[in-house]
């Protein structure tokens, strides 16, 4: 049997969702699960804002000459797209939604260590988000998400300062989330939950939190300096005023490269939960995967200069950053191989979350391997700032991280909402997203190697065929993203009631009711097993 059927009683059990229905009880909640829901709603909003910008961009790029929007508008579109997607969607996506919901439950705690700080994080995030939206509505920003100086500090006459404030505030939200996770994971594990028993989701969130805490402040101070330069006209990064533009790039990437691992590590954590569950096996190489997360977090701090191979930094700098980039890819490779090996001799159930997880593995592999291509010095000289790089990071961030986020949402949806999502629709849209995604971004690899520069709103005529393919793919992809939005909302009202453990999964979160009570557990659980003890759980029927 799969699970215990949930039998509605006369008085429905009290859950975190039904303790109170007042708006106040949501907006002033200190419950990590409710805060996770608040985040879920808000990041979805920002995702569609960023997605709408992507749609307009792709429409513009259907023809070589610029005809749909003006050049200035296009520049604002990709800037808002990058800023929204990176800072307000992907960075908070898995940590602040799934992590917030699951970190305490998975380690058997009643809440995060600092619940009110957690709520503050969400408010900071929202304030930052409103500033960013405000900057967009008041006329936009056109610097690209990278804010390269001196363009951003001296030349652009758009709302750079406002956007900087937005990202600055949002940074503190990230820092507080990371801090909360670190303390919670260190100090609030249930009896028996040794480090060696932590689910890999927790390990990857721990690694992510280290980056949150140690990298984000550098971005904050860098942006402050850009703002100071803009407002006071003193030369920090503008050579005309005596500053150094390369210094800005170093500082920016010192944050933003670790930030890409902020985006991928939690996704790897999600996949590490889903794969063993639907293969019904202990994960292969638990120790290696856990260690790889930490290795990525640490090494990730040392490779920032690979974004600057043609910036004019020294040859030796380039070489060191190149070799370190190759080294940091090894832990990722280890993870991919271990996930694949987990399937071996398993009992593989291709449900929606598993489809997403397998999609993640494949697309992340391709994205990561093209990461190696751009990390190769002589090749990057050619493909830097072309669509090759755009394809590389969309493969990892959209094909990888967004897939994992959607997989995680489907996997834990029964736990979060107490309802099942419609399986057929789930599989269908996973398939649609996979197809649409590849059609959108694979042609961009070719475009990039052919030499089409990024951030071009008009391009040479011979690039048109591949661009049209890409736009066609994006429309399928957009549809693929709208579907889950619709059927997941539908399932809130009409979905089947979820049992406690619909997937026959190991892990503490599957041992409390769906949805869990406010305190997560009635009594503190005592852990007696290693993580992924699937040998002790019967295989559910397909």
């Amino acid at each position, binding site marked *: 049997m799969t699970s215990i059927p949930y039998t509605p009683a006369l008085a429905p059990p009290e859950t975190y969702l039904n303790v109170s229905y007042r708006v106040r009880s949501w907006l002033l909640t200190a419950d990590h699960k409710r805060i996770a829901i608040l985040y879920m709603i808000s990041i979805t909003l920002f995702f569609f804002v960023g997605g709408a910008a992507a749609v307009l961009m792709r429409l513009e790029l259907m023809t070589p000459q610029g005809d749909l929007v003006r050049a200035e508008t296009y520049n604002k579109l990709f800037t808002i797209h990058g800023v929204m997607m990176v800072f307000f969607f992907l960075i908070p996506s898995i940590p602040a939604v799934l992590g917030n919901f699951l970190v305490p439950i998975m380690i058997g705690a009643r809440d995060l260590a600092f619940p009110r700080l957690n709520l503050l994080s969400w408010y900071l995030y929202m304030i930052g988000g409103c500033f960013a939206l405000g900057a967009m509505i008041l006329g936009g920003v056109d610097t690209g998400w990278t804010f390269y100086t001196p*363009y951003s500090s001296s030349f652009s006459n758009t709302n750079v300062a406002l956007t900087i404030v937005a990202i600055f505030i949002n940074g503190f939200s990230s820092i507080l989330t990371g801090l909360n996770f670190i303390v919670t994971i260190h100090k609030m594990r249930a009896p028996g939950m040794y480090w060696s028993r932590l689910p890999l989701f927790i390990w990857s969130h721990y690694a992510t939190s280290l980056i949150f805490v140690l990298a984000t402040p550098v971005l904050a101070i860098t942006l402050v300096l850009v703002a100071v330069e803009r407002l006071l006209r003193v030369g920090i990064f503008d050579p005309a005023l005596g500053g150094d533009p390369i210094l800005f790039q170093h500082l920016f990437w010192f944050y933003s490269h670790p930030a890409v691992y902020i985006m991928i590590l939690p996704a790897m954590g999600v996949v590490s939960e889903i794969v063993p569950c639907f293969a019904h096996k202990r994960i292969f190489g638990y120790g290696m995967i856990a260690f790889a997360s930490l290795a990525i977090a640490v090494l990730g701090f040392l490779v920032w200069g690979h974004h600057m191979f043609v910036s004019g930094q020294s040859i030796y700098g380039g070489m060191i950053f190149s070799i370190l980039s190759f080294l940091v890819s090894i832990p990722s490779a280890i993870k991919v191989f271990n996930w694949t090996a987990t399937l071996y001799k398993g009992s593989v159930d291709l449900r929606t979350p598993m489809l997403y997880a397998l999609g993640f593995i494949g697309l992340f592999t391709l994205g990561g391997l093209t990461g190696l291509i751009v990390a190769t010095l002589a090749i990057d000289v050619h493909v830097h700032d072309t669509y090759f790089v755009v394809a590389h990071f969309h493969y990892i961030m959209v094909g990888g991280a967004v897939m994992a986020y959607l997989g995680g949402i489907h996997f834990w949806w029964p736990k979060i909402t107490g309802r099942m999502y419609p399986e057929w629709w789930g599989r269908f849209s996973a398939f649609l997203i996979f197809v649409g995604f590849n059609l959108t971004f694979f042609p961009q690899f070719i475009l990039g190697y052919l030499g089409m520069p990024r951030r071009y709103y008009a391009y040479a005529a011979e690039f048109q065929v591949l661009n049209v393919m890409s736009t066609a793919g994006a429309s399928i992809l957009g549809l693929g993203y709208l579907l889950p939005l619709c059927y997941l909302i539908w399932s809130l009202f009409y979905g089947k009631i979820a049992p406690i453990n619909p997937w026959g999964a190991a892990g503490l979160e599957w041992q409390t009711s769906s949805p869990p009570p406010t305190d997560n557990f009635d009594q503190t659980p005592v852990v007696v097993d290693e993580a992924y003890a699937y040998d002790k759980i019967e295989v559910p029927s397909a």
Partner: protein
Amino acid sequence: MNVSFTQSINLAGAMLAQSDGPGPSTQFRLWPQQASHFAVQVDTLMAYLLAVSVFFTLLIFLLILYFGLKYRRRPGHLPQMVPTNYALEVIWTAIPLALVMVMFVWGAALYVHEVEAPRDAMEIQVIGKQWMWKVQHPQGRREIDQLTIPVNQTVKLHMTSQDVIHSFYIPAFRVKQDVLPGQYTTEWFRPTKVGEYHLFCAEYCGAEHSGMIGKVVVMEPGKYQQWLAGSPADLPPAVAGEKLYVQYSCQTCHGERAPTLAGLYLRTSRVLENGQLKSVVADDAYLRESILNPSAKIVEGYPPLMPTYQGQLTEEQIMELIAYIKSLGSAANPREPSTAPQTNAPSGGGQRR
């Protein structure tokens, strides 16, 4: 084997790209044109990278498919617990590690080659500004948004920007280099095929970033000479520099109260910086600093007399002055500034001591 792979792709590309009219080819293709000696080298490396990528992508995709089907969940099929196999872990750490180390060494070696220009290259000056490329040939002819060069001639671009960061990108040559304000960067290549190729600005630089494009025209050397002579040429940079040298009365000091500039280029100077004695190589960056900010490094044994020319000279003028100083010979073969600069063009009539 790698080369043949590239060639076959190009063959396919060439079959599609039959008739190219004037201007850069607009034919649909899947592999970029190879028009410099770098292109073949970079593409060969790319073929290795693609081979590794295709291999691992297929490996992972196929394994997932195979396992997913073979071990799919069905009644009567039970999973078997497989303990972690550390021998396997070592293997799949070591093999990728070896493969990426090859990537690193190969990529880095080629990169060093790409960065370090040969000494005998023809130097062309490039100034980027929002949103155009200004090019000047050693003989003086100027172009805008176009770079005309003879085939099989090693060319070195000497670049700076007047405002924000740009990037000089020629896909068919596989070369790209950011062009920075307040600094010099260089880029070199040897075109191997006559034709017209795209020139792009690759670093986002504001509204018309995508309009900051042009073409690179590679000609037979003979035609190039014709082309050079074809229009009334501007003064060669070195000659213009000489004029400036006189106009800003550099010669009133240099040679007497100030060190001679003959043979200075690429020589090692002893200078005082922040009160400490140091050796510096007199490269472009140093010459630029000496003119714009003379007090930063004071030549040993001389008083800090020299005024700053910051704000009085345009980027072009600074480049011309430097070209003139270079024309006075390098450390290897010094020449006295009193002789006419080493160009065939009529001398600027400058009076020098």
